[in-house]
């Protein structure tokens, strides 16, 4: 069941959504973004004026289809190459802050 646009449900909770996107926001940023995103959502909300009943969705505009290949092992990047770009590496691994207490 497709959800319908309602007239006033277009205001987003910027802090909540930024949390989903793993972006910390300062109070000042959150306030500014709230206004800008409200404007943008009001603008893109104009699509509700269109009748799209029965129209199929386009995800990729092209002739792309499943591209199959033989499932054979191939060389990837070497460990040294990958670790050279890592912000922090230890014992031949990428290091991150402790996850488990």
């Amino acid at each position, binding site marked *: 069941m*497709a*959800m*319908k*646009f309602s007239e006033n449900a277009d205001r*987003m909770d*910027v802090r909540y*959504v*930024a*949390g*989903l*996107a*793993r*972006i*910390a*926001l300062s109070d000042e*940023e959150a306030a500014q*973004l709230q206004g*800008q*995103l409200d*404007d*943008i*959502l009001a*603008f*893109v*909300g*104009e*699509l*509700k004026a*269109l009748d*799209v009943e029965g*129209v*199929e*969705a*386009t*995800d*990729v*505009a*092209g*002739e*792309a289809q*499943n*591209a199959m*290949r033989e499932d054979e092992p191939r060389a990837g*990047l070497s460990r040294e*190459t*990958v670790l*050279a*770009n*890592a*912000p*922090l590496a230890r014992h031949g691994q*990428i290091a*991150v*802050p*402790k*996850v488990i207490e």
Partner: protein
Amino acid sequence: MSADLCELGFLEAADALAKGETTSAELTAALLARSEQLEPALNALTWRDAEAVKAAATAADEARAAGDERPLLGVPIAIKDLLNVQGQPCTAGSNILKGYTAPYDATVIARLRAAGCVFVSRTNTDEFAMGGSTETSAYGTTRNPWDPERVPGGSSGGSAAAVAARLAPAALASDTGGSIRQPAAFCGVTGFKPTYGRVSRYGCTAFASSLDQVGPMARTVEDAAAVYQVIAGLDPHDSTTSPRPVGDCLADVRAAEDLKGVRLGLPKEYFAEGLDPEVERLTRAAVEQCRGLGAEIVDVDLPNSKYGIACYYILAPAEASANLARYDGVRYGFRAAAEELQEMYEKTRAQGFGAEVKRRVILGTYVLSSGFHDAYYLRAQKVRTLIRRDFDRAFEQCDAIVGPVTPTAAFKVGEKSADPLQMYLGDIFTVNVNLAGICGLSVPCGFTAGGLPAGLHVVGPAFEDARILTIAAAYQHATEWHRKQPKI
């Protein structure tokens, strides 16, 4: 001599190298010397390495001396700082990719490398290609060579400014909603966005995967076509690339003289409110010149084109929010100091991303979130179908569509950066081409009274890339706009 060398176009450079009139070392040194001189005013480049370029150019010269006859051997090209070139930084205009060195070549780079091209510099871009002015770049705004108080357009503003200012004979760029064509129009160069699926995206930093396409910018249609011929075609690393043969259009492009038998569609929707009168006048004059060259001009309707921006600003941020999830500070690029993992993600992204990227990632996350997905994302995908059908119908009546690329000429630095929505509205004529997955280009078509360039938009059906290049070449061969140079 060195100033003259910078004047050489892409194919002219190939010719001069083949005839032994110059060397790649000499040519690239001249371009880098000019870059050194102009960069303080332009900021078109994010990276250049004279030693590395000299080594590559010298190797090309030595190969030529040893009998290597590849036609593009030693020819310089600038690369948008969004495409991976092995061993070079690739910042995408973002602080979050600080410290990253590309461990592999993008497919388009590998093909240019195999052809013998030398990568002379990396060009500035809006952060992750999100913008129309280069003002969102973490490396500062690029200035328009025609007026340094104005933006060069974006996101490929660095590539456009570099080509216009003769820092490189050609550049690679990318176009998700107009990012090749709009800066080409603003800087008076030729910019070509190929059909979706025509050029591999492998190694091109992803913004919105169903819309992104790599393409060339150059000072002539021939040069753009020559670069396109090298980079286009099926790539096993990108399943959206088409197996259709690319063919060779360069001879047709070079020979294009008139437009006899060509039907050009003029959409009345593109000449509506909001189009600057000067840009309208220049566009209409260009269309009349096409008529004079033998083209038949027919009216076409694109009734859903007005919904393109709304559709695009749902779909592109949605795809961006997924693509940019990879920048979490774990494997490469910038990492913020933090005690635990969640905090590391949130601080890395807070400090690493600029305001426009945050805005789009949050917007994209919202339109994909449970409860809003159908109302925004799915609905926009359906509108995308309506926009495609508009073009399908229009192309039943014409061979290509012509119109303006941008509603105004280049605007002033800072003029729109405080109001994101105003910036987005500038994409009105370009986004629909990406949404429909078809091809489009911008070719210089005159100057405003204030001396700013404008572009004629030529849009063709999917996989008719050669057709629009040939049409644009016929127009360009009859005009002198592309020969004008900014005084910098």
